[in-house]
């Protein structure tokens, strides 16, 4: 798919779910072995056109996520390149053991795609929030965990994932009218983070929806005379260790930012990496609390939970002046 500022704007309006469906549709011709599955959420995953255009490449498992992953594994075993999606908690947690046994243990080539990761499901409430998913998925051996920063990156990721051999958890965050990080084409490689902004005082490492908020926070920090780097750590597992080594070598404080529980996500992954090095680098984790939260619209919740740019900047400032 051609990436231009116009397409970036169009995709942003659609949001990550709709763009996932478009991206899958766009690659279908290039991948004869593609199979796309849904658990009765095709219409919610932007897959309606795919379903009608490529009925032979689509299988609805019904509201049965555990079986969907098992069936996806069977299809993958016979050579299919399978993308199976559902809402984040239903795929990452309800079917987590199937992902562990069928995808991790047997290394079968299935992309488990979580739509509505984080708190983007708004008034649908905590039952539908994906705030523990990275903790669960990251703990499964052999599983690659990726969360794209915006809708353009959803396209880049779907294109890359379709040629990637092995099981993967794809975490889509954000809503329709999704903030734009990328307006032009760029190099995207699974496992390789992206330096979006260079600064001298602090490094913000973010994934998913929080990449944009971190970039905005860096702008706010600049107004306060604080110069921040921003890294898009779209691949949470395996971590881009080369990049982390560069960051550590500079010795600046690190702030991780994620729309996920503070337990087990990006912040935990970075802390796990830093801790045994004993490098003395200070690390602040900006994340969701270990709690079920009051719900509302997405912007309200980001503000309430301290995940909007303003809150991130304030937390960074406090952290840096301590």
């Amino acid at each position, binding site marked *: 798919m051609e990436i231009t500022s116009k397409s970036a704007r169009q995709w942003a309006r659609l949001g990550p779910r709709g763009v996932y469906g478009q991206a899958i549709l766009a690659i279908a011709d290039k991948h004869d072995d593609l199979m796309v599955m849904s658990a009765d959420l095709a219409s919610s995953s932007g897959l309606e056109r795919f379903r009608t255009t490529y009925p032979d490449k689509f299988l609805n498992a019904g509201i049965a996520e555990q079986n969907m992953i098992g069936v996806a594994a069977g299809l993958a075993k*016979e050579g299919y390149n399978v993308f199976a999606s559902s809402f984040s908690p239903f795929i990452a947690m309800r079917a987590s053991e199937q992902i562990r046994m069928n995808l991790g243990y047997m290394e079968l080539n299935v992309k488990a795609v979580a739509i509505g990761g984080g708190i983007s499901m708004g008034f649908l409430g905590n039952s539908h929030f994906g705030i523990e998913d990275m903790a669960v998925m990251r703990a499964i051996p052999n599983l690659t965990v990726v969360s794209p920063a915006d809708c353009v990156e959803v396209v880049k990721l779907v294109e890359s994932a379709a040629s990637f051999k092995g099981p993967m958890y794809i975490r889509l965050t954000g809503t329709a009218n999704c903030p734009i990080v990328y307006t032009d084409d760029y190099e995207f490689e699974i496992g390789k983070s992206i330096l979006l902004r260079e600064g001298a005082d602090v490094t913000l490492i973010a994934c998913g929806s929080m990449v944009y908020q971190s970039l905005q926070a860096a702008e706010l920090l600049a107004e306060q005379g604080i110069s921040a780097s921003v890294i898009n750590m779209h691949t949470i597992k395996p971590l881009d260790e080369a990049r982390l080594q560069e960051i550590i070598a500079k010795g600046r404080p690190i702030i991780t930012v994620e729309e996920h529980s503070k337990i087990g996500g990006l912040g935990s992954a970075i802390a796990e990496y830093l801790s045994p090095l004993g490098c003395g680098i200070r690390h602040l984790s900006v994340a969701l609390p270990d709690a079920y939260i009051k719900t509302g619209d997405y912007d309200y919740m980001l503000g309430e939970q301290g995940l909007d740019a303003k809150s991130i900047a304030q937390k960074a400032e406090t952290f840096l002046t301590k």
Partner: protein
Amino acid sequence: MSYPELTEFARTMRQKILDISYHSGTSTHIGGALSMTDVMAVLYGKVLNFDAQDPRWPERDRFILSKGHGVLGFYPALLGAGIISQEVFDTFQQNGSDLIAHPVMNLDLGIESSNGSLGHGISMAVGIAFAAKKQAKPFHTYTLVGDGETNEGSVWEAAMLASHLKLDNLTAIIDYNKQQNDGFGKDVLHIDNMAERFRAFGWHVIEVDGHDIDAIVEAFEEDPLNKPKAIVANTIKGKGVSFMEGDNSWHHNRLTKTNYEAAVAALNNSNNERSDNGNNV
């Protein structure tokens, strides 16, 4: 294989089950391995299409042991079929072995999937059978499901999808021994009408005596007419070892030397009885 050969295959498997269980020196799942043995003998002795010299042959029939704890009834079948060697077989539960208490996918050893957590294998079998349909591949997919395993909701998710997709290239055998870890199924979670349940889920169902070789063969031969096929095999947990039959302590237990010798003697008695009974063929 002919009837006497299949009977002998099953007898040898039962002996092997006792042997490797005893030699492992640990508790193993004996009861449910003995209950599935006649079905496995028919599968590996007559039904499955495979090439022992080339376990990865693309057109091989697929067998998924959904009741993963039934490996003691699986490895002897792979040995008897010539897919794994005696040398490999003898590594059962040695440190670092490929053959452990639940199967680990290893296509070179004829093991199609990793199992152990229940209710997974049948889903994978549905996926494989569906893939075969889409690719117009001639192979058939078989899966052996424990009756206790059907407590898992995912089994019924798979059952629903299999009939929805009209997978007549899929056969699930239910090892209906009516016991599970904590005792009789009727006491743990009542499942007395297995055949009706699968029928209600849109499957072609055949109920057989799971120790009647001929009946099992016939069940495999029956045409499911555009539906997935379930063979509900009524079996006896611990079959062939009189003191284990009906005694659920042998679901997972360790064979002492005394018990092992008693079990082998009981197995031989059982075999003699069978031949004494003459030809119920």
